[in-house]
Structures are given as C-alpha cells and as structure tokens.
C-alpha cells in the first residue's frame, strides 16, 4: 500500500525531470518555425526522445500515399482521350490517335523485380508500332512516350500541363503518334523510338515517389534511341511538378535540349545543359547562412 511506505523510502524527484503527473509529455522545439523554410521534417518536437504521435501519423499517411502512387494503375486510356480533346495537341493527334502500349512486365510485382521486362515492349505493342510504321512514309522529328514508371499519380497530374507548355516550343515539328506505355521503364522509349524510326524520343515517366513528392515527373531525351542504349545516351530533367520544376521552366529546358540534340545529332553525356548559362548569379556571399552570419 503506497500510504504505508515510510517517507524516507520514496525516491526524491530528480530536479532535471518534470515529475508533475499532468506535465506536457510532448516537448515542442523552439525552432519548429524553421519548417517555413524547408520541406524537411524539422522541429518535430519529441515525446521523451521519440517522434510525437501527430507527426508519426502524418508520416504514415505520406508513406501510404507514396505506396499508392507506386501501385495504382495508370488509366492510360482516359489520359489518351483527354489529350485528344486538347486544342494545342490537334497537330499531334489529327493523323493518328495515341497508341496504348504495354511492356513485357505483366503486373506490378513482376515490374518491380524485373527491370529488364519493363524496358521492352510486349509482342502485341511491338506489332502495333511496326504496323503503324509500315502504314506511313512520315519522317518523325520526335516521339513522345508517356510511361507510368513508379508513379501513376505523377503521370496523371503532370503530363497534359507539361505537354501544353512544350507544344508552344515545338510548333512545326513532325510529332509521331503519342504513345502511352504501362509497366514501363525509361529505356522502353528507345524500343518505341527505334520501331517508329523517329529522330529523337522524349520519355515522360513517373519518378520514384518520395514522401513529400509522390507526384514527381521525369523527362528523358535520347537522340536516335535504340534498344540497348545506356543512361550515358540520355539527358534527364527531373522533379517536374507544380511544387518542383514548374511546367514552363521544364518545357524551356526540354526544348533547349531537343534543339541542341537536333543540331548536334547526339544526346547524353556529350550534350551539356547550358540552358541556365545566361543567368548570372552573384556568388560572393553565397556560402553564408543563418547559423553563422
């Protein structure tokens, strides 16, 4: 019985700890307002030394959303239909409707474990492209290939606005039928490019989703894409999304690279992105930050 214990046996409260039963179990951080300057999860506070409940649950929600972005199937049919309805895309879709394609990875579990399957078109898709190629004598300047990759969310949200921004730059280019590929990796664009005999390919693909960016679109450009090309032949523009690289900027960079590729007839490590070279920045004080200045 607690009231029987002699007073001298009751441990004295340690001054460094709050022992009041109603004391706040969560210690807030004085620097929590720094989260206004970064998306990083700074100043979360702590329950003891652990993450407080509300932040634990917020993290789990973000992880759940990222998992869903990976595993939700892209509705490429709906996306292709939406593209056809855009005024700015009329030139691209007038002669041939978008082509719906699939990689050799039959489902997501296979896709995740066999990147080699995701890099090649399945037989039916390859046949579809070969038939198209045989049916026309067009010479295509560019193939646009939209691929689900690791985030269908990124593709659904960013494809049309980005292509609209790009369309203003590439008026007059002869664009191959726009291709939508399910269960695809970046390199599947080379398979498409080779079969359509396009001069260049631009792949739009859902990037590996982060907790704070489940919706990030990547752009990969390859001059004369052929099956077996490595990353050394590609140029990449990453993090295309409203909270990242905005559409107009992404389109400006993409056009710079497309134009350079067309002029130099190459892409990859030999094609440097100098699209920002005209932006002169004063670097004299730039290492200063609030921790020391």
């Amino acid at each position, binding site marked *: 019985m607690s009231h029987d214990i002699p007073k001298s046996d009751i441990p004295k409260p340690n001054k460094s700890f709050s022992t009041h039963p109603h004391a706040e179990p969560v210690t807030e*951080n004085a620097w929590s307002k720094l989260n206004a*300057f970064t998306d*990083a999860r700074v100043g979360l506070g702590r329950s003891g030394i652990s993450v407080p409940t509300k932040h634990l649950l917020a993290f789990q929600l973000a992880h759940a959303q990222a998992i869903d972005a990976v595993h939700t199937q892209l509705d490429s049919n709906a996306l292709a239909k939406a593209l056809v309805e855009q005024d700015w895309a009329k030139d691209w879709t007038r002669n041939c409707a978008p082509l719906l394609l699939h990689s050799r990875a039959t489902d997501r579990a296979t896709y995740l474990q066999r990147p*080699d399957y995701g890099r090649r078109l399945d037989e039916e898709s390859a046949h579809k492209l070969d038939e198209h190629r045989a049916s026309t004598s067009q010479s295509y300047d560019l193939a646009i290939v939209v691929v689900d990759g690791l985030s269908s969310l990124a593709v659904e949200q960013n494809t049309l606005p980005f292509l609209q921004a790009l369309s203003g730059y590439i008026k007059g280019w002869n664009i191959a039928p726009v291709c939508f590929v399910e269960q695809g990796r970046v390199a599947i664009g080379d398979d498409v490019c080779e079969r359509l005999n396009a001069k260049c390919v631009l792949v739009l693909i859902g*990037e590996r989703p982060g907790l704070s960016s489940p919706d990030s679109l990547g752009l990969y450009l390859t001059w004369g894409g052929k099956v077996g090309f490595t990353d050394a032949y590609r140029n990449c523009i990453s993090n295309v999304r409203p909270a990242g690289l905005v559409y107009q900027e992404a389109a400006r960079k993409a056009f710079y690279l497309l134009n350079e590729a067309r002029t130099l007839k190459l892409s990859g490590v030999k094609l440097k992105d100098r699209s920002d070279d005209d932006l002169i920045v004063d670097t004299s004080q730039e290492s200063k930050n609030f921790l020391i200045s």
Partner: protein
Amino acid sequence: MSKPNSTFQFKNTVGERTFGFVDLADLMAKATPARSGDRLAGVAAQSAEERAIAQMTLADVPLSLFLEQALVPYEEDEITRLILDDHDKSAFSLISHLTVGGFRDWLLSDLASSEILIQIRPGVTPEMAAAVSKIMRNQDLILVAKKCHVKTAFRNTIGLPGHLSTRLQPNHPTDDLTGIAASMLDGLLYANGDAVIGINPATDNVQQATRLIKMMDEVIQHYEIPTQSCVLTHVTNTIECIEQGAPVDLVFQSIGGTQATNDSFGFNLANLAEAQDAALSLNRGTVGNNVMYFETGQGSALSANANHGLDQQTCEARAYAVARKFNPLLVNTVVGFIGPEYLYDGKEITRAGLEDHFCGKLLGLPMGCDVCYTNHAEADQNDMDNLLTLLGVAGCTFVMGIPGSDDIMLNYQTTSFHDALYARRVLGLKPAPEFDLWLAKMEIFKNNEQFTLNHQLPDAFHKSLNRMIGGRS
C-alpha cells in the same frame, strides 16, 4: 536439380540425388540466402534444397582455395589484383587450415578474441568473408561483428566499443542554404552529426560542392564542433575542389567490387590514391588522419552490368578491399536504397545489412549502415526499427540521421535524429567522446549518461534562430 557431369567443379550427393556446381562463383551464388537481385542476375539457387546443398558444399571448401581461384580474372580486374597482391600470408597462417564451415566455428569460438580478429585481418580476403557469411545466421553475424573493433579518427574518435555515431545528412532538393542550415540545426540539437555532416548535392558540380563545403566548414568552425564535413560528389570533383582551395575534410566516392563497376562510376584506384594524398596534404584532422568516406551497396555491380556472374553479396564484399586500401574514416552500406529488384522486402534488406556490416568489420572497416528503404520496396518503418536495433547490438559504427526519416532530396526514408536517440537509450550507446563533451558544453544534452536533451534552446543557438524566425518562441 542439375545433372552431374564433368563440367562441375563441385558435386554433392544427398540420398539418391547429386547436385553439381560449375565453379566457385556458381557455388557461392547458389549458397547465398535468397534475394531478388540474384534472381534478376540468374545466378540464384533454383530451389530451397539446392541452396541448402550449396551451403553444405561451400562449408567444405578450404579457405586457401580462394587464394588459388580468383572469382574475377586477375588479368582483367585491378580489384582482384589488389586482393591477391596485398594478401598477408603470415596473418592468414592462423586460419589457413580451416574450411569455410570451420571458419564459422572458429569465428564464433572464444579462440577468436577481439585481438586475434585484428591480427588475421590482412589474411582474410573479401571472398572468404562473403563465403562464411553465407552460412552464418543473423545472430552469428551480429555476435562476430561485435567482437571486431575498428577505430578511426579525424576531428573525433569513431568506432570505440559502446559507441554509435551518426552522419547528419541535411540534404535539400535545390541545395538551398537556409533549408540545409535548418536541417543541420535540427540535427545538432538532437545530438546528431559526430560521424560526419554529409550532404548529397542536388546539383553535382565543382562550384556547387565548393559552396557547400565552405558553408559546412563555417558552421563547424563557428560552433567549434568536433566533427568533419563531406560533400558526396565524384572523387574527381573533390580533387578539383581541393586544387581550388576549398576546405575539404573528407573525400567521398561510391565504390563497387569489380573494376568494371568502378569504370561505370568513372574512377579507378589511382584516382582514389590521388584524392587521398590531396586531402592528407591539407592536414585538417586534429586527432587522426582518416580522410576517406566510401559508400557501397549490394546490387551496384549488376546494375552496371559488371557482376561477372557473381552474386551481389560477393561483389559487395570485394568493394571492401577497395575501401580498406585507403584507410577510410567511414564506410557506409546504403542497404535499401537501390530498390526492390535487388533487395525485395524488409527481410532481404535486414539480412543484407547484417551481412555487409559483418563482412566490413571482419575486413577491418569502420562500417556504418544507411538503414533505409524506398517507397517501391516492401518495407516500412518497423523494418527499419528492427534493423537499426540489430545493428546497434552488433556494434555498428554509424547510422544516418535526417529530420523525421524523410530525405526530401533523394526521395527515400532512412533513420531519423530521433531514431539515433532511441538506439542510444535502449542500448546505452554513446556518441564519439569528443562530440559527447561538446554536446555537454553546448548544453544540448542535459544528461549525457541518460541521453536526455535540454528542454530549453541552448544559449549558443538563440542568436542564429532569432535572426531567422524572430523572438524566442
């Protein structure tokens, strides 16, 4: 089951059935605990039984065979040459009579004291370490790794028994200095950052690396933090940074276990030697001269199409031969980063983390682990809690620390500042002693023994924080 014929170097008959293995590489691959990367490479055992038989067969292989039969040809590969040319016969003599199976027993026995394990190091090749790890259970990997003590130093002392260090990783998707500084402050006030403050730059060039190196150097000097900084850029960039006068503490490079892998990373052993010399010439360490920071990870060789038919864990162990040539301060296996095509789920990531830590420690490396996963792997925070705890028990040298486990630049999840404090509390693991003193001096820890943080914002940081957000909130 494979039909035995004369093309098999190893055969093992169990009951009515005979299993054959073409060569040592085939035997090693088939004896490897199951993982997606070996299935992708087409080198994994075809059945659970074949794997168990391969492990029994491997257990009978004498360690000396690894000195006679190179898994990657000597003529083609500078890492094979490094392994065999640097092999110390007299150190090996203590274990030269053992088979792989006997080596496991010996490592677990009291014969293998911490002192003896240091003596045999130069006699153990990566392939021997990989082979024995394949027939060890997780608890074996933990028990032996804990006996392997590896101490390194630069501005503090890393790897003392009973200690765990953390890399403060304040990455930002645009390298924004305010964003980076915010994460650094958060980390320091959560008592992280004694292994290194290390940034993966979003823009990877010499100018950007120099800017970030200067920024971290100024913070370290201003607060007199006994730690070191590193920008994780290509080794050739860091050499240029040094030539241009940047205050470089540690040189970084991602390394693999075959020459062809490192070719694909754009460097060779001579580049690393040049970089090490350049960093040493700056003489910036105060308590030691370990100036290299390497990162590795199972799957990099296959990813570069440079695995020579080996399993990914054997390739990984061979990378440690590269690392130990250059006396690194830190080696980090980034275990769950590469994705589910190499390590599919939490179980495979956990196993790989323990294998890498064990092999690294046995070979004498200051082995840390980026306990991590991506959102397309079958893993979550609970898997990370498990691996962090196991590695803490195993005496892991360091883990990562980032705000709330969320790396907003690399888009993956690794251990948080809070997680490190969890491991300290449940396992009683201290930060590097010099850093521990600094934490007390700065009043970040109120009680260093119980890892209790100050409830108040330490005085030294008031001014900086006011500058940014105003008031004392």
